């Protein structure tokens, strides 16, 4: 146990470990964005360079402003989305250890995502524009639908693992991957990831019908921070799901890290392909499903897992 709690900060020293975590976060975001643009281009592989091109272009592009914006909160909002996404990667044990490892890793991950409520709202409200503001409201409405199910799924893995520490949860899956006994929580977790990054079927806050909503007034570096943050969050969701449900780095022959990366990559492709097959769900209708279906279903899942834990299924 003491060994599994080791962090990359202890192994590499703080500065290299932070650098490594940043690199991992940016790579997760880049790979997700590349996969997404390939799927959007109906499988044309050359579209994979689009995120790089867009990044370069955004860095050279002028920052826009609007009439009488709340400039401070607006810029802060976009930057916060990106920072929160980076922070969420800190507890993901890709190499078997994470940058930080506390007795409340799951809470850390959830907190990064919960603070996103404020950040996304500020992005919507800052530019003093209708479509942007409507996007902000849509995000909050959607949040009401996914937030509780997300918390229940996280806590379900905590119950089975007997700990909120990510590495402990990975260790608890030595015999049986959690996805086997909690498939519903697995799907709900991935869906929540798409929802808090407002992507795919949950992209209503940045919908075309409101001219891009939260993104509608952002250009240059600000737009890059928001979109980059969303991509990193989605990559982090796939990586976290690997730790929570797919046994982390467990696998034959290949080293653990290779297995971890492989599982994460496969999960990303599955997430993108599935997400892009669907139309956008209107938040007002999704909230109903969130409360009437997802909340009871994830609670039931937690109950089943709790009973299995008592029966000693997870050691």
């Amino acid at each position, binding site marked *: 146990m003491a060994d599994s709690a080791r962090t990359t900060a202890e192994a590499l020293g703080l500065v290299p470990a932070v650098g490594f975590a940043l690199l991992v976060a940016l790579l997760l975001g880049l790979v997700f964005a590349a996969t997404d643009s390939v*799927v*959007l281009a*109906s499988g044309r592989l050359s579209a994979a360079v689009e995120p790089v091109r867009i990044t370069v*272009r955004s860095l*050279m*592009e*002028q*920052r*826009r402003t*609007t*009439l*009488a914006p*709340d400039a*401070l*909160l607006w810029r802060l909002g976009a930057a916060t989305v990106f920072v929160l996404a980076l922070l969420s990667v800190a507890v993901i044990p890709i190499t078997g250890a994470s940058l930080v490892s506390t007795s409340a890793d799951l809470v850390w991950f959830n907190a990064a995502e919960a603070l996103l409520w404020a950040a996304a709202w500020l992005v919507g*409200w800052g530019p*003093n*524009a*209708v*479509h*942007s*503001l*409507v996007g902000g*409201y849509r995000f909050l409405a959607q949040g009401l639908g996914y937030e509780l199910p997300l918390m229940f799924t996280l806590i379900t893995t905590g119950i089975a693992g007997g700990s909120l520490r990510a590495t402990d949860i990975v260790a608890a899956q030595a015999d049986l991957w959690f996805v086997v006994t909690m498939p519903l929580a697995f799907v709900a977790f991935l869906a929540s990831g798409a929802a808090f990054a407002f992507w795919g*079927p949950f*992209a*209503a806050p940045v*919908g*075309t*019908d*409101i*001219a*891009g909503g939260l*993104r*509608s*007034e*952002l*250009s*240059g570096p600000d*737009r890059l921070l928001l979109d980059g943050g969303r991509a990193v969050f989605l990559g982090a969701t796939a990586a976290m799901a690997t730790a929570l449900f797919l046994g982390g780095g467990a696998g034959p022959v290949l080293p653990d890290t290779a297995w971890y990366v492989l599982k994460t990559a496969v999960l990303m492709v599955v997430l993108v392909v599935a997400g*892009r*097959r*669907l*139309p*956008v*769900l*209107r938040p007002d*209708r999704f909230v109903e499903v969130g409360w009437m279906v997802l909340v009871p279903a994830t609670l039931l899942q937690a109950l089943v897992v709790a009973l299995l834990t008592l029966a000693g299924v997870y050691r």
Partner: protein
Amino acid sequence: MAQSPAGADLLITLGYLGPELGAATDILWSQLPRPRHRTSITAAPVPEQLDAALKALHSPTSRSEDEPADPEQLLNSLGSAESHDSPDHGHDLGSHDDQEMNGGEDSSGPAAGDHADHNMDEHAGHDTGEHAGHDMDHMHGDGMIAGLPMAQISPDRDGLELDRLAVRLGPWLPGWPTGLMVRGSLQGDVLTDVNVEWADSGHQGHTVAAPLPGQAAALDHLARFLLVAGWSTAARQGRAARDGLLSPSQQTVVRARRAAETLARRVARSHLLSWSVRGIASLPPQETQTQPAGTEDVMARIRHWCTLATGRGDPASLPTISLVRLSQALEGLELASARLAVASVGVEQVTAPRPGTAAHG
């Protein structure tokens, strides 16, 4: 295609623009972040001109253009009727109810009253703001911000006192026909006082674009709707099939027909889409001019477009609706529903009688 000027690099106008569209284009242009390039294509050869525009965008000279006109001045220079309106989403603060631009001094009148009851409005967050420029009390005090009048409060459909923001949707929203403008008031995200019109419809030389052949037109329409509905992969397939149908190569046309068939089946049978958009903007059958069966709500109309997109059905039965009927149908809809509703119908191109055009605020 960019969703908003913030995401655009290149502004291309095709054909001649009337005065109204031209003025709105200038405002749109003022909203593009640099580096940017603007070009107008009015004659063949189009592909060469597009290439030239791309090249100009990437050349260093495009970065040293003149200082762009101030959008605030542009808005003001459009004259009193236009000064309250904004194209698309450029300046959504643009116009507020019927208050005149010079109404700012009327701070003791009803315009500035009722602020105490203001906590239900969509800007509730403003009230606690300490940032000087965003202090609602301050703004209500002089009734103006950045040269524009503040929103007024009035009862909404649910009996709440909400801010009323005059908006103009169009003339170029993604997925909507170019030139279509919906004027109205937004309270929260509910549209009221709706008046739909075509830009430059009264202008001499207003031309209607040559229609596409039936099946391609239906595919084009379907793709536009799917874009508004947020189904970008399906929208892309629709556009690809539309272009294929117009190709001179017989082989491509056959392939495009098959793609159209697949797409139409997928859209018409999508439970998720149906669950998400059904029940919106129901129109009694007599309200659609040519009334094919099953045009009650958005989903039913989309199923009809799907049938037409496969090349079956009578192309003459494209569901179209007059501007007046459309205005009535949009009354009281939420912004999202209104966007879907307009995208789900064909809008009559003829200039119908336009009640209240002169009276708009």
